[in-house]
């Protein structure tokens, strides 16, 4: 079997997570573990990754596929290094999320759901992220970027390009 393997510290974290649930109910740890897996293995969940999680939890692979395809944060297809998840629900729309989405499309030359050719950026639209008072906004990795303007979007793109360049 050719599958990814968690580094020791992550594996320890995964084992610790499983202890949060009663004996025999280890399947409960699936979402927290899928988050760790996604963060570790390229930002998405390949079949191999999901099979590996199934093995760790001692459940059938199909049980993992079933769950991963239900939750919007689980990427079952590859994504760019930086995923712009822009909220488009009512309160954000009122505050100009449409213009922000259009601006990102124009600047990166991609449509919603697409990734730039260099593999750096993916644009997604998402529904309310609980930041309605700080709209328009997007999620980028672990954090929210709020009160977006075109200028801020430019700055974020630059910042991502810089980090990508220093990490390579």
């Amino acid at each position, binding site marked *: 079997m050719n599958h990814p393997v968690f580094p020791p510290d992550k594996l320890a974290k995964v084992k610790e997570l499983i202890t949060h649930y009663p004996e025999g109910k280890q399947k409960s740890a699936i979402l927290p573990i899928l988050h760790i897996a996604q963060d570790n293995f390229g930002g998405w969940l390949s079949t191999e990754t999901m099979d590996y999680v199934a093995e760790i939890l001692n459940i059938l692979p199909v049980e993992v596929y079933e769950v991963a395809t*239900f939750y919007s944060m689980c990427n079952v297809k590859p994504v760019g290094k930086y995923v712009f998840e822009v909220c488009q629900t009512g309160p954000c729309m009122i505050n100009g999320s449409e213009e922000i989405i259009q601006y990102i499309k124009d600047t990166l030359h991609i449509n919603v759901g697409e990734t730039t050719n260099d593999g750096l950026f993916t644009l997604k639209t998402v529904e309310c992220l609980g930041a309605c*008072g*700080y709209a328009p906004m997007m999620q980028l990795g672990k954090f929210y970027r709020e009160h977006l303007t075109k200028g801020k979007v430019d700055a974020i793109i630059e910042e991502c390009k810089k980090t990508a360049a220093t990490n390579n």
Partner: protein
Amino acid sequence: MGRKLLFENVQVEGIRGYDVYRREGGYRSVEKALGEMTPDQVTDEVKKSGLRGRGGAGFPTGMKWSFIAKPEGVPRHLVCNADESEPGTFKDRYLMEFLPHLLIEGLIVSSYALGSHVTYIYVRGEYSWVIDILETAIGEAKANGWLGNNILDKGFDLEIYVHRGAGAYICGEETALLESLEGKRGLPRIKPPFPAVKGVWDRPTVVNNVETLAAVVPIILIGGEEYSKIGVGKSTGTKLISACGNINKPGVYEIDMTISVEDFVYSDEYCGGIPKGKKMKACIPGGSSVPILPANLLLKTAKGEKRLMNYESLSDGGFVKGSMLGSGGFIVLDEDQCVVKHTLTLARFYHHESCGQCSPCREGTGWMEKILRNIDTGKGKMSDIDLLWDIQRRIEGNTICPLGDAAAWPVAAAIRHFRDEFEWHVLNPEESQKRNYGLAHYADPLEPAVAAV
């Protein structure tokens, strides 16, 4: 200024950390509850307080707690609902981000009352930095003896774990949340059995909102009776309102439920009025699932009375002339906003979030989105408005969980109150692509309804 029970110390520097929180009197409710009260006495205080669930439905918390089954030898669980995904709602995030120890304190006291030795906080997956804050706070609480075995030498054991969700509004519905906590798809369960009898892993479970559980702290400190005197009628205590949309000061406010909607919108203490001197056109006062109201009906009830920011007053007039306090997600639309378009974004939201188990919800939400998109883009027909009305009626009440109703109500209310705006879109397909219908008569003073003789 209204009395603050939750946010009293929110501005104190360093309150997120344990030392400052404790210095400011934190964890005294745990000392009081574990030291002087039995679990049933804690539940009694919560009953006396009149506290109603802050997650949206407003069910009395003390009563909910007293329903929990206590079969011999079966563990019970408290689960804190921090899935917060109702559009317009961002109060729980604020509370957890700035006062994590307040939530933990409330969880300890509530777990003691319910006999839960392992309590979970189910947090929406996107709030990942909030999860770190909570985990740090849990670590601090544990290091200082507030969690673990034999807390305060009183023989009570408790662990609190954060469980990270992964993006699904439906997991805020309590039975879907429990399925998700079991590691499955978030498909709501048919009730009965109720979670209080068979919840997570078939064990008796109570699910409560973040704000509800935090409110247990002041209830224990000042006593249920004192708490019940704050507010009015069955709206006791204080409520967190997250305000957004076209207002000068979006944010999270703790209000005393006696203030008027008008004061809330226009006073500088709260929303600070509408930007650029514009007029308010409409408002959804309690999160996207509750009926939208035109400005005139928001500020005054159909009887011509001032509307107040509480459960009873906001629902005065029922669904025809009123709305609901719901989750406290207060969304304001100014004169430049288009109600059709706003409703379309909500229909799309519910379509996206429907779990697909019931056909009226799965199919109906999709149809509503499609029809609303047609009307919004100038491709609608007059008959579409009646069709929309018909579809929402067929969803309401015909589904496993309340998401179906939550999807139907906003559409029903938008048509009920803003029908002329919908008709204008249909009759003016080209013009409607260039400008919005505007304020129209939606802020005009209402003729007070005359009682039928």
